[in-house]
């Protein structure tokens, strides 16, 4: 590697040498989690009790992957320092060579993928470590880690894939793992149903992704990122129907995977899985895949301003909508789930605005603090569960009404959750402040060109207020006030073991300092430069920015008084939200869940999540089931397929068989004559072609 660098980036042939040298490393990054999956899978079949080995393998491969990724990062940042637009592409083997379509099993590594790689492996490692403690008592320990490793493998394929089909493998793979892990405790029908729901809702999104791929293939004649993005500005008219269709279909995929309106419904249900899974898959990594996809295809989105508007609008609406639901949830994980949906909305607002860096930045910081929140919640649930388990109580360990005053029993968790709350609420200098503020600033800036973005900005700001509110509510209900767990149970509440608090601490640090990745210019930096992530991602976004400039929609920031107003407003909103949430919650009468009065009025609507699930059930599921039963089953399946297809085919075969059996005269000469006629025909075809 070093002698490679000595040869000098930018020299002819250097990239080939580099790709050759990095090939095993990149294969290793994919291969290690796969190995972990295979080993753990084997263990889960043969030695489910060997938890020590499973932990070592499961967490070990992830840590090793992270270290490999880190080392790769160090090496490549040296390269990119000299020549930022070198993209490492490694073709492992040829996958689909059909006619003009040539899809290789290829991986690519650029700055954007590197960010995702580090987040996935880094946060993933922490969550794996946490899981070692959290899942300790579970029977499906080996299976759990096998799934988790498989998930990481697919996530890395998604991130590193060098073409749309490669990304789609990862896309589908993480969906599969998500399904498997949501329904991890599948013996309870609700959990299995939640898994199915996630899977089916995601199918709708995948359908959009597939259609987008077909259109891309039709428009550009290629599916690999490099070629598509290279050709797209030439073959796709800016703002044209094709570009808009492609990006809208892509966004449909994103909406499914990243839980945006109208396909967000699966994510809250996905909390049925183990909490670390929620942290890893349904907060930090998989659900951000949609954001990553938009960021990856920023060239295409830059070509379609309408789609950008849709993305930003849906993002803003989702942010606000989910935040309102989060106001009145009692399940600690549900609150966080809606919070996740809301924050994802922010990210889409960011990438929809064209501020890809801001969106990715929020993705990263969100990964830190939301993982922290989920793991903290996991720690709380762990403790609560132990308490209820010890006393054989059947109360809900996740209901915040049953908690209260936990700060006394779990000080470390409480402090870290507090940090995360400040981060997500947007209090400087915590990570969330910078990223959220940047998104809102860009949205406001774009409003100068497209006034609709002022509206989106307003929705985002309001959502920020609500975010601060429900987070304060969560903290107040969980950690402060009187304890409502119960007399006997209270004895069993305790802080989580170090293997769980350790990752929490690391994540806490990251939530605290994550904002330093991309400090805005107005912020007085201490030793750290401004806009690191911005510069880091510049080569990836360059093409998209060029397109955006040509369209006249380059992302812009306001400066001066407006900027000060925005920043001040954001801080004010956060503080206001936190205070309101704290005050309102502390003043409400707190009773355990089983004593709680039913919700009334608008609270009831919020509590029931605006009845969206019921709406979907009435509008889509039931008509579909009825249609399937009456038309598809009775008419199409029994009538057409069974009658015409199956029995008809049988009848046809019988008829043909009868004719054929007439030919079987047993006379060899006849056979030979027939054969010869065919042979002469073929010969004629060849000779007189």
């Amino acid at each position: 590697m070093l002698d490679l660098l000595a040869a000098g980036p930018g020299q002819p042939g250097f990239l080939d040498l580099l790709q050759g040298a990095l090939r095993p490393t990149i294969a290793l990054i994919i291969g290690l989690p796969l190995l972990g999956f295979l080993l753990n899978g084997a263990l889960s079949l043969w030695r489910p009790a060997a938890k020590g080995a499973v932990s070592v393998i499961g967490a070990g491969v992830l840590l090793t992957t992270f270290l490999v990724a880190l080392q790769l990062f160090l090496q490549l940042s040296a390269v990119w320092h000299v020549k930022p637009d070198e993209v490492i592409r490694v073709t492992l083997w040829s996958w689909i060579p059909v006619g003009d379509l040539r899809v290789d099993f290829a991986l690519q590594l650029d700055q954007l993928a590197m960010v995702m790689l580090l987040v996935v492996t880094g946060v993933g490692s922490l969550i794996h470590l946490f899981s070692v403690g959290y899942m300790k008592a579970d029977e499906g320990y080996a299976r759990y880690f096998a799934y988790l490793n498989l998930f990481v493998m697919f996530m890395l394929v998604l991130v590193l894939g060098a073409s749309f089909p490669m990304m789609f493998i990862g896309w589908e793979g993480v969906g599969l793992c998500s399904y498997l892990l949501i329904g991890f405790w599948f013996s309870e029908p609700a959990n299995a149903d939640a898994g199915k729901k996630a899977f089916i809702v995601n199918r709708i999104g995948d359908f959009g992704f597939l259609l987008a791929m077909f259109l891309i293939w039709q428009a550009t004649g290629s599916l690999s990122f490099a070629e598509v993005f290279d050709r797209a500005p030439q073959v796709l008219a800016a703002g044209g129907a094709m570009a808009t269709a492609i990006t809208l279909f892509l966004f449909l995929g994103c909406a499914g995977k990243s839980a945006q309106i109208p396909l967000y419904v699966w994510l809250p249900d996905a909390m049925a899985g183990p909490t670390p899974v929620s942290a890893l898959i349904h907060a930090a990594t998989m659900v951000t895949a949609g954001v990553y996809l938009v960021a990856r295809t920023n060239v295409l989105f830059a070509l379609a301003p309408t789609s950008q508007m849709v993305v930003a609008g849906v993002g803003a609406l989702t942010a606000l909508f989910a935040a309102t639901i989060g106001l009145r949830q009692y399940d600690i994980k549900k609150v966080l789930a809606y919070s996740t949906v809301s924050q994802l909305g922010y990210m889409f607002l960011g990438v929809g605005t064209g501020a890809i860096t801001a969106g990715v930045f929020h993705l990263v910081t969100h990964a830190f603090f939301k993982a922290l929140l989920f793991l903290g919640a996991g720690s709380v649930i762990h403790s609560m569960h132990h308490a209820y388990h010890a006393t054989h109580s059947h109360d809900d360990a996740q209901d915040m009404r049953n908690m209260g005053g936990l700060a006394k029993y779990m000080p470390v968790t409480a402090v870290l959750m507090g940090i995360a709350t400040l981060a997500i609420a947007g209090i400087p200098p915590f990570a969330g402040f910078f990223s959220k503020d940047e998104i809102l600033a860009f949205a406001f800036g774009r409003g100068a060109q497209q006034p609709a973005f002022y509206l989106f900005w307003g929705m985002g700001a309001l959502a920020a207020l609500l975010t601060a509110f429900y987070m304060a509510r969560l903290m107040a209900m969980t950690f402060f006030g009187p304890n409502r767990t119960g007399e006997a149970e209270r004895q069993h509440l305790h802080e989580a073991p170090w293997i769980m608090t350790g990752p929490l601490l690391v994540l806490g640090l990251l939530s605290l300092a994550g904002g330093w990745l991309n400090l805005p210019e107005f912020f007085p930096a201490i030793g750290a430069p401004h806009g690191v992530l911005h510069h880091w991602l510049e080569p990836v976004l360059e093409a998209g920015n060029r397109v955006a400039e040509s369209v006249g929609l380059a992302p812009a920031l306001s400066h001066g008084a407006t900027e000060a107003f925005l920043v001040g407003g954001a801080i004010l909103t956060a503080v206001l939200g936190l205070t309101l949430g704290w005050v309102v919650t502390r003043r409400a009468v707190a009773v355990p869940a089983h004593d709680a009065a039913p919700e009334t009025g608008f609270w009831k609507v919020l509590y029931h999540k605006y009845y969206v699930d019921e709406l979907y059930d009435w509008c889509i599921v039931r008509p579909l089931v009825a249609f399937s039963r009456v038309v598809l089953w009775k008419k199409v399946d029994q009538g057409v397929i069974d009658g015409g297809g199956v029995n008809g085919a049988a009848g046809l075969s019988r008829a043909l068989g009868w004719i054929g059996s007439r030919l079987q005269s047993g006379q060899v000469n006849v056979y030979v004559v027939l054969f010869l006629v065919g042979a002469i025909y073929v010969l004629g075809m060849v000779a007189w072609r």
Partner: protein
Amino acid sequence: MLLGPSLAVSAILFTIGVAGVLLRRNAIVIFMCVELMLNAVNLTFVALSQAYGSSGQVFVFFVMTVAAAEAAVGLAIILSIYRHHKSVDLQQINLLRG
């Protein structure tokens, strides 16, 4: 070079073999006509091997092996058919009739 004429002779022999299979009813004679066809193909292989290395001759070698195996098994079958039917006339042996 005798490539063209060899191929033509091979084609004629093959055709005669085909005609024999079509015309004759005696199983053994039909068998012999099949052997004739195989020989014609062998000639093709050898003629082409003259131009392009000995692989063609290796194929002839394989064809001969197959022919020998075929003759052994085929004649054994004909023998056992003869034991049942007291005839090797294929027009009378139509057990395969559908």
